[in-house]
């Protein structure tokens, strides 16, 4: 019951913001939206079916047949964190009130779409909510209306429309065969007609559609340009949540609760994942632009998630989910750092920057922690999730892919070390003497996200039992 609120509240908020006679100011909108994100984050810790009678009958009409299990609750938490981060970055970066207002409304709509996606149990509604998130992100990317933002958003539009066409056709086939679109009927059908080539063709089409959405290597064309061109808060939101929810979460949801795993699909997932890990890392190595490098790095990290759950066991799914949560935290942290750099130094080319650690201590330390966690250096959360992925692959006897996953983190380390050398960890370049630390909002967010990474890293056993086991019992 209470989970339908997660969709309805943002909808009402947007309506409330745009009442015809009274339009509230951007600042208040930002404040309310961030409040909502905090509430959503803490809702993760509330017991599942908190029922308070007052709300009960009010919402009874809107009883939506949502089911919720651990994975969705975890995704709820991650989306709340990332949305909160992007809203605060927005608050620090944008100063025009109107733009803040528009931005917040779009974020809320996209959040509503995402929450819906987490709880829906019907492949057609999955398609609908993916469409909602996609639509909001087209506009978010092009919000500043400068030339390459529009071009990037157009590119994203075309690519994801191709993806949605594929998804729709595969849903049509599945509907044709199964007679219904909710997960249960489709999975029963799949048990029966799994081997049939038409059904597998439909499933493959669906996977390709989701690959395009998720930005897995051969289908990732739109990702670097859209991350680069999008304004800073949008790129935080995009990198942090959108690609991962629309692309990878739905993939996990489908394979976990609808179609089981068979070796053919598994091999597709594993091959494409390792391609995107290795080539993503290579592409990121000598990028000059900070955000573009982060884009390629997130492609390679997404590859890790797909590799994780490509292992086929529930332990693999748990590892993938845990890495998804970690990755969205430290990737959005890295994008927040890039936003801070953009605001303070407004030079996007890394080779012009130099030794900013002395001038921007918080940003540099948090970026170091984020880079270490991405590369999988032990005490931090990234290491644990990568270790779980490797263990899952190892126990599922996919030793070759495990070795690829292990050795690829050397490449991850290379491009982040190059980044550290160029941007933070060197002598201060002339002309940056009067660079001050990023504004409070951004520093607060980066400290928060960095704290999450470190805490999850250090308290790994409790996190594992509490967070992950509830999502996927293995």
């Amino acid at each position, binding site marked *: 019951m209470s989970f339908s609120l997660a969709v309805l509240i943002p909808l009402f908020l947007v309506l409330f913001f745009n009442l015809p006679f009274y339009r509230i100011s951007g600042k208040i909108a930002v404040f309310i939206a961030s409040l909502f994100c905090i509430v959503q984050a803490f809702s993760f810790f509330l017991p599942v079916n908190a029922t308070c009678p007052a709300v009960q009958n009010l919402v009874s009409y809107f009883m939506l047949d949502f089911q919720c299990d651990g994975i969705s609750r975890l995704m709820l938490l991650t989306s709340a964190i990332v949305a909160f981060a992007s809203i605060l970055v927005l608050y620090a970066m944008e100063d025009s009130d109107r733009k803040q207002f528009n931005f917040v409304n779009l974020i809320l709509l996209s959040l509503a779409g995402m929450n819906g996606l987490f709880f829906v149990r019907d492949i057609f509604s999955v398609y609908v909510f993916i469409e909602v998130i996609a639509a909001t992100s087209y506009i978010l990317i092009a919000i500043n209306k400068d030339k390459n933002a529009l071009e990037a958003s157009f590119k994203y539009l075309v*690519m994801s429309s*191709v993806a949605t066409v594929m998804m729709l056709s595969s849903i049509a086939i599945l509907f044709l065969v199964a007679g219904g679109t909710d997960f249960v009927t489709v999975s029963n059908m799949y048990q029966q007609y799994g081997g049939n080539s038409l059904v597998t063709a439909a499933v*493959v089409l669906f996977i*390709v559609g989701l690959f395009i959405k998720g930005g897995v290597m051969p*289908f990732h*064309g739109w990702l670097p340009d859209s991350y680069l061109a999008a304004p800073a808060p949008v790129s935080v939101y995009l990198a942090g949540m959108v690609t991962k929810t629309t692309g990878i979460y739905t993939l996990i949801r489908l394979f976990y609760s609808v179609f089981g795993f068979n070796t*053919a699909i598994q091999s597709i997932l594993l*091959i494409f994942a390792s391609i995107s890990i290795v080539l993503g890392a290579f*592409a990121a190595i000598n990028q000059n632009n900070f955000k573009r490098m982060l884009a390629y790095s997130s492609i390679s990290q997404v590859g890790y998630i797909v590799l994780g759950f490509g292992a086929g066991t529930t332990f693999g799914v748990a590892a993938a989910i845990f890495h998804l949560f970690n990755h969205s935290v430290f990737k959005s942290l890295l994008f927040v750092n890039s936003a801070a750099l953009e605001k303070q130094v407004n030079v996007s080319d890394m080779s012009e920057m130099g030794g900013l650690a002395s001038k921007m201590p918080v940003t540099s330390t948090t970026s170091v922690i984020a880079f270490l966690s991405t590369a999988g250096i032990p005490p931090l959360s990234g290491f644990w999730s990568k270790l779980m992925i490797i263990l899952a692959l190892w126990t599922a006897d996919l030793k070759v892919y495990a070795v690829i996953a292990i050795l690829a983190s050397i490449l991850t380390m290379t491009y982040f070390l190059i980044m550290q050398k160029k941007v933070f960890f060197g002598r201060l370049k002339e002309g940056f003497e009067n660079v001050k630390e990023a504004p409070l909002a951004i520093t607060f967010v980066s400290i928060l996200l960095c704290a999450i990474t470190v805490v999850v890293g250090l308290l790994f056993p409790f996190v594992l039992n509490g967070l992950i086991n509830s999502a996927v019992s293995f």
Partner: protein
Amino acid sequence: MNILLNVFIIIPLLAGVLLYFLPSKYNIVKIIMFLAAVSVNSFFSVFFYGREILFNSHLLFRLDLYFRYYGLNSFMMIVLGAAALLAAVYAVASMKKEKNTFMFYAFMLLALSFANGVLLTDNFIVLLLFWEALMIPMFGMIAAGKDKPVWTALKTLIISSVADLCLMFGVMLICAVGGSFMISQTNVDISQPGAVFAFIMMFIGAAAKAGAMPFHSWIPDASVKAPLPFMVFMVTAVEKVLSIYLLIRIVKDLFVIEIGSDISIYAMIFGVITLLVANMFAVYQKDFKKMLSYASIGQAGYMIVAVASLSVFGMVAALFHMTAHIVYKTCLFFVAGNIEKAEGSTEISGVKSNLRQTMPYTFMSFVLAGAAFAGVPFFFAFFSKEMIYASALSVNWAFYVCLSIGSLLSAVAILNWGIKLFYSKPKEKIIQEKEVPVFMFIPTIISALACLMFGIFNKVPHTLVSNVIGQVENEHSVIITVILISVSVLVLILAFINNVYTCKKRNDGLGFIAAALDKIKIDKLNENIKFDPYEIFIKAVTKFSNAMFNIDKGLNYFYDVTVPGSVNFVSESVKKAHTGNISVYLLWVILGIIFIFIIF
């Protein structure tokens, strides 16, 4: 009672350390302490003589040192004590004015205590411990020379540490093969695997201590630069004593080798090479002390040949010769010291006044010691040389020939120097120098008289030595002894003729011997550095390390250039692939789909 055995190590060690750290205003006290320590040591060496003591002391390094005091090392310790006493008295007298004399004294005491340590212990590790510990006092003593000759000191350090490493490896092998760390308990048959390798390494290590050929080049440099007592005490006494002690232990106790085996032949050849080359170089030396140092290397060659003959008779001969050598070599070095004191330098050109008149006593002791050195009958060394000739002859006649050539060369060298020093006509006006101070003079005379006395009553040292090693009846028939004596007398006459009568033609006083040697171009060999084994060794090492340096540079190039280069190439190509226009990306999507269908 057995606790007293620690005295040999503790007293010199404590005295040395105290001596070094006491402030300079107590100089007189320090000298007294120095002399007291040395005399106490020699007193105890005599006091303990004749006892058999097994004692496990925990004196140093908190390890148990397993002392074993018995015949052989008691004799060695007496000889060492006596030499130390003579050197100490001479040192106190001759080094009064120099700067770091007390450093020298301290290190001398340290060296004495470590030498006693080597002689006393019965455990291989402790033997090695004290053996290699000698390096620091040696370095200190050389460095305490007149103008701080640290380069020579370091050269000594390198050479002796390399030699000691050979010994260390030999000891390791013998412990591994023999199975125990105790010297008295190891008795390894040569036929066991690894035993031959162990024997070779230990033999080289021990012989190197005495200055055998490849490891000798620090001795001549040290003789010129280091203070004279160092040459007397360290080079002649300690090094020879320790080296011969270990050689005898190797041949007698540690290994079981039958007499005529080819290993002993190789060892004797090794000794003969040292002997011949050293004596050849001795003939050509420009400096009296350098000549003496080469001569002592030559004598070391004698002893090695004697020991290498593996017979008990040979061992007795070696020990006897060692004692004789110590006595007359100390006396010769004292003579050199006196001349240097008076003349300022022992270079040929340096000798200005006619020393025969000015320094009659030194001249007399030179004559006695020179005679003993040359092997004139009824002098100390004559009898031991005969025994060495006999043992060499018993193995192979060729060795005997080389030995006699060697002694001929040494006789020529000593005679040449005698004439040059004492019978040359002074160029400039005669400068009246008085004799050297009394204290320097006494040790010279004592050692000279000792040469004579022991020569005449050679039964006393002979009995002492033989009852230490083992009674040996003189199995050589009378004829052989007669032949030996006549040959050595012939050698002496030959040398005399060469020096006195045929020196007119050549100005350097060497007769036809020098002409013979010139054909082999020995003198050029001796002077230039190229043939100094130490330089050859250093050059080889530098060549090897340059090669290694290049390997490392190549490896660095691989890590710094090729790996990053290839990674950049790949990432550059991937970056170029992202052209940015939409149609290319759509093309990739299509290719991806085809790829999936292929997999299915």
